[in-house]
């Protein structure tokens, strides 16, 4: 199984039936393929749709129905469209159950940096700061390391997206929960040892006696 798929499958199990969820562009978007349509989970795209559906078949795209990356999408039955102010009212007012976002760094305080690399990449924060600050739960979905360099670090060196402590970090190696007392290693990816995880992590992390293997089966429908 590809590292991304491990992450996506594990994140899918975190989403609660009947709730509103925002998936970031890229790896997080792929989480939706591991969600049962019977769960009644609605995906929000911050450009103004609640109940975003999959990409339409070739030739059936519609120019005025797109996601936050500008890609063509569909609307599920029972979808609603809203303007940007209301879309962010949903995000900032605590109406979004979860956001799943990629990350560049997460630190021991559970703070996420994912919007800027000074001098290199200055795309703008888009909706990321609103999502991380306002969603009820923030799930970071990312590779554990970037070209061998650990991304879970003692202190973020990149500009923060929010000072808020994220809810959960899901990587291709581990599930880590940021708590008031610091990071706690909760799960290992299939075939990965605790030692390997610690080796790939520069942040301090509490390791409970029992660190079970991730469950990456499809969530119950």
């Amino acid at each position, binding site marked *: 199984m590809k590292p991304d798929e491990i992450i996506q499958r594990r994140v899918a199990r975190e989403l609660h039936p*009947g*709730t*509103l969820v925002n998936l970031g562009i890229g790896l997080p978007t792929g989480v939706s393929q591991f969600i049962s349509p019977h769960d*009644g989970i*609605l995906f929000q795209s911050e450009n103004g*749709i*609640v*109940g975003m559906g999959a990409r339409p078949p070739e030739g059936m795209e519609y120019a005025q129905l797109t996601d936050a990356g500008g890609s063509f999408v569909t*609307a599920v*039955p*029972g*979808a*609603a*469209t*809203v303007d940007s*102010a209301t879309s*962010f*009212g*949903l*995000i*900032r*007012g*605590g*109406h979004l159950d979860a956001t799943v976002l990629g990350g560049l760094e997460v630190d021991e305080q559970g703070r996420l940096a994912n919007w800027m690399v000074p001098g290199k990449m200055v795309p703008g924060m888009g909706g990321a700061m609103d999502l991380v600050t*306002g969603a009820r739960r923030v799930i970071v979905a990312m590779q554990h390391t970037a070209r061998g360099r650990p991304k879970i670090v003692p202190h973020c060196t990149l500009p923060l997206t929010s000072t808020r402590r994220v809810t959960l970090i899901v990587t291709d190696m581990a599930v880590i929960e940021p708590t008031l007392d610091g990071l706690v290693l909760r799960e290992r990816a299939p075939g990965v040892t605790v030692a390997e995880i610690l080796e790939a992590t520069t942040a301090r992390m509490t390791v409970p006696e029992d660190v079970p293997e991730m469950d990456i089966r499809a969530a119950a429908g």
Partner: protein
Amino acid sequence: MKRAISPSAAAALIPDGATIMIGGFMAVGSPHRLIDALVAADKRDLTIIANDTGLPGIGIGKLIAAGCVSRVIASHIGLNPQTQKAMIAGEIAVELVPQGTLAERIRAAGYGLGGVLTKTGLGTLAAEGQKIIEIDGEPWLYAPPLFADFALVAAERADYNGNLSYQLTATNFNPVMAMAGRIVICEPREILPIGAVPPDSVNTPGVLVDHLIERAV
């Protein structure tokens, strides 16, 4: 998907002493069957946040007449002398808020904002005891967000996802309240199957609505 419940089942969810937003403007666009159910359940000590208290025995006026209410936050109580009498008698505490500020305070709660900065009311009784914030030397009246345990709203149409559409001047405070209540209960005139309402016809996304009231028989 949401199963529709009866007005009395909805009323049973609401404890005495709760803070409740109720949609409507002079009883137009109010959830009348929910109000009846609250009266029938003999609720006590409610705080009502609404534009007004309706007319005597009409709309929110029924809750006033039945003695369910101990506190009101509204912009206008002029057309309900019972509210005014109860206020003067000290039976109901009334906080009067300019109507535009009331709408924005409710919206601020629902949209995660820290409050409202407005010129309305500056230098008047409405500013008494309120915070003034200076921005670039200019004074603004600060008004805090208004939260509620419950929002009871009325809609013209819902689907079983809870998506709501309003009609004409029955819209009024219902959309902002549906964003702001911790638990949102909607009384629609009709409930359509999921998929029967186009996305652009939805005024309030269903994720905001916790309970739908079943259609009147």
